[in-house]
Structure formats: structure tokens, C-alpha cells
């Protein structure tokens, strides 16, 4: 790290090094990522079985199923991201670094976002095949909504994963705390994705994307500010 001892790390360089560290940890544990992808795809199959062979219903609600599967898998991904730090005693080591907690939060959240996007990159094409969906909107807009939606999950998820990392019942507590909080971004992501898939004759996409951006800005700034207090505790 480039910052002076006891001071703050130097902005983007430190942040990128921390993101690289988290991505390397993710790469070394890639079997977990494969397991999470398998879990998310299995969830999509479970939705198909639960609703029966009604292809029209599956097609109509494809974006909702995809986002619910992604939300469920993201909880496991986020919980694991801090579990490794706590189990290996690496969290104490990180706290000794001359890096601000804000940089630690954004690095961890960015790494989680990238890993979740990889997961989404596996899940969504498979979902499109399973539910017979071909997007009518521009692919870049779909990628943008995907990134905004995942960012809405990851910011509060990273904060709560750190908050519950040392709690014995983390696997229960994390979704209980996180799911109510991410209802607005998930709702906006589902609606925006559905509009990009089925068409947007009423021009509603901008409003849902605006809601997503608003929640992303709110969560990324608020959680970044509060992260230091979580680490201190």
C-alpha cells in the first residue's frame, strides 16, 4: 500500500490494489463461484418445475425469476466474501493497513460487484434459453440495468456481510436484514429488465432506471460512510 503508516492510502491506486486482492481471493476460490452459478441455475429450474409447463407464464415473468435467483445467490456470495476474511484472521491484518475504511468498503463492494456480474453473465443467457426470451431492447441498456441492479444489491450486502461476519447465525441473519432493504432496487431491476425484454411502449424505462440510480447513489454513499464503524465494532 502506498499511504504513509497510520495515514490514508492514496486514492485510486490503493483501491485498485484492494480490488485486485479480493478478485485474486475470488479466483483462488473459483470452485465456490462455480457452485454459486450452479445453485442459481438450479433455482431457475425449480421455478420452472413449481409453475409447471406453462411456457407463457414462464416467459412473462422471466426477469423476475432471474433477479430472484440472482438475489438468492448474491447472499451466499456476499456472506462468503467476509467469511474468508474472518476465518483466516485477515480482517485484523486489513485493519492494520494504512488504508481508510471507506477504501476498504469500496474495494470489497467493487470486487463483489464484479463477481456478481460474472454470476449474472452465466445465469441470464441460460435463463433466456430456458424461458424462451429474446430481448427487444439494446444489449447495452440491458447490461447497464444489470450493473445498476447488481450495484443496488452489493452495497448494502457488503455492509451487512461485514456486520454479521462474526455472528454465529450469519446465514440466517444476512438475508433477514438484507432482503427488505433491497426490495426497491430489485423491484426496479425486474421492471426495467421486463421492459427491455418485452418492449417499452409507454416509455417507463427511464423512470425505473432513475429509481435504480437513486438507490445506488444512496446505498453506495451511506454504506461507505458507515463501514468504518462496523469494522471498529
Amino acid at each position: 500500500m502506498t499511504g504513509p503508516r497510520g495515514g490514508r492510502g492514496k486514492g485510486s491506486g490503493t483501491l485498485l490494489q484492494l480490488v485486485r486482492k479480493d478478485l485474486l481471493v475470488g479466483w483462488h476460490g473459483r470452485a465456490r463461484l462455480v457452485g454459486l452459478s450452479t445453485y442459481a441455475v438450479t433455482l431457475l429450474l425449480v421455478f420452472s418445475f413449481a409453475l409447471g409447463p406453462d411456457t407463457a407464464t414462464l416467459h412473462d415473468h422471466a426477469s423476475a425469476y432471474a433477479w430472484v435467483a440472482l438475489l438468492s445467490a448474491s447472499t451466499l456470495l456476499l456472506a462468503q466474501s467476509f467469511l474468508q476474511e474472518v476465518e483466516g484472521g485477515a480482517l485484523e491484518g486489513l485493519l492494520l493497513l494504512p488504508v481508510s475504511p471507506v477504501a476498504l468498503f469500496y474495494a470489497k463492494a467493487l470486487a463483489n460487484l464484479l463477481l456478481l456480474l460474472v454470476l449474472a453473465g452465466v445465469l441470464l443467457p441460460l435463463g433466456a434459453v430456458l424461458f424462451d426470451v429474446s430481448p427487444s431492447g439494446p444489449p447495452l441498456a440491458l447490461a447497464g440495468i444489470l450493473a445498476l441492479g447488481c450495484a443496488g444489491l452489493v452495497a448494502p450486502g457488503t455492509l451487512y456481510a461485514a456486520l454479521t461476519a462474526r455472528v454465529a447465525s450469519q446465514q440466517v441473519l444476512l438475508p433477514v436484514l438484507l432482503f427488505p432493504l433491497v426490495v426497491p432496487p430489485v423491484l426496479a431491476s425486474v421492471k426495467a429488465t421486463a421492459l427491455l425484454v418485452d418492449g417499452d411502449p409507454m416509455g417507463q424505462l427511464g423512470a425505473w432506471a432513475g429509481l435504480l440510480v437513486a438507490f445506488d447513489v444512496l446505498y453506495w454513499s451511506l454504506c461507505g460512510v458507515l463501514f468504518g464503524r462496523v469494522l471498529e465494532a
Partner: protein
Amino acid sequence: MRWTLLLGILALVALTAGHGIGLFASPPDAAMGQTVRILYLHVPSAWTAMLAFTVAAVAAVGVLWSGRPGWDALLEGSVEVGVVFCGMLLVQGSIWARPTWSVWWTWDPRLTTTAVMMMAFLGILLLRRLVDEPGRRATASAVATIVSYVDVPVVYFSVEWWSAAHQGFSSARTVDEGMRLPLWVSLLGTVLLGATLVLWRTRIAAEARRREEDAPDLPPAPPPLDLEIAP
């Protein structure tokens, strides 16, 4: 203690007067008939729940700012009271929805966001039960309260953002003149009742934390049993 008791007595007087007028003297609604009388219970419950969560958010900032145990006790008291009033709000809404909308529950934005808000704060109570160390528990629940408070304006503005079955903003200004007095009085009574409960619960939480911190260490483990049989 005396002030809390006085507040409680005032709350009971206001509630009796407000609901007495609401049930027997206020006019029925032109469209909803007698079912409108739940207004005097439902709207005050909503205001009290939101106020309790607002107090919890202020207490959470106090915890992070000063770290004083008193703020943490206030946070616990106000979150619990807020969750209770939020639960009452949902039950009352369901009772009203059955004769009005012919269903116990509908996926209306106001209903859904209120249920989500209650679950968010219920999660904070769960968090408090699962973290043993008082200092960590205070910080963790303060952080979770501040983040969960984001949902409160979403609930409040949900009727404006998403047009749906639920009525718009309800207050004494939006109802018929004959309904204003009972609504104001029952609102005052319910808020005072909420304040009384928050104060009582805060005192209990503060006492519990004091005992937790003053509790002597666990007694040392007893020595292993000497099972050797004397000759």
C-alpha cells in the same frame, strides 16, 4: 417514572375521548360507510410507527456519535414499539380491506412497503438478540437502523410514486370537518401511548444493559470429581 405515568394517563384519556367521539359522534363516510371509523385507529398507528422509527434513527446517530448506552436503550425501545405499531397497522389494514376490497391482503405498494419496513426493523431486533457483546450490539444495530430507515420515506411516498388501490396521504386536513376532532384527539392519544411505551421500554433496556455489564464473571469450573475409592 412519574412523568411516564402521567404521559400514560394522558394517553388513555385522549384515546378514550378520541375513539368515543370517533365511534359514536363522527359521521359515517359517504362512500365507505361505517368502515371509515377504523381511520381513528389506523392513521394514528401509522404515524406512531413512523415516529418511533424516526426516534430510533436519531438514537442510532446518537449511538455512533457518542457511544452512550442511553442512546442504545432508546434505540431498542423505539424499534420495538415501532415494530408493534407497524404490526398493528398491517392487521388493522387487513381487517378494513376484507369488507372494502374483498381480500385480506393485496399487493398494493403502500401495504407491501409497510410490510417490508416492518421486516427490516424486525431483523434489527433479531440482530440484537444474536450479538452478545453490548458495545458491538449497539454499533451493529445503530448501523442497521440508519440503513433501514431509508425505507421509511419509501413507505410514506409510495402512494404518490405508484398509483394503486390505497388512498393518498391521510391526515386531519384531508378528511371531512366532522372527522377532524376525533382524528386529532386519537392521534394525540396514540402518539402519547407510543411515547409512554418507548420510555418504559427504554428504561427496561437500560437496566438490562447495566446488569449485563455489572454481572460478575461466571464462577470457575468445579474441580474434577475424585472417583478414587478409598481403601
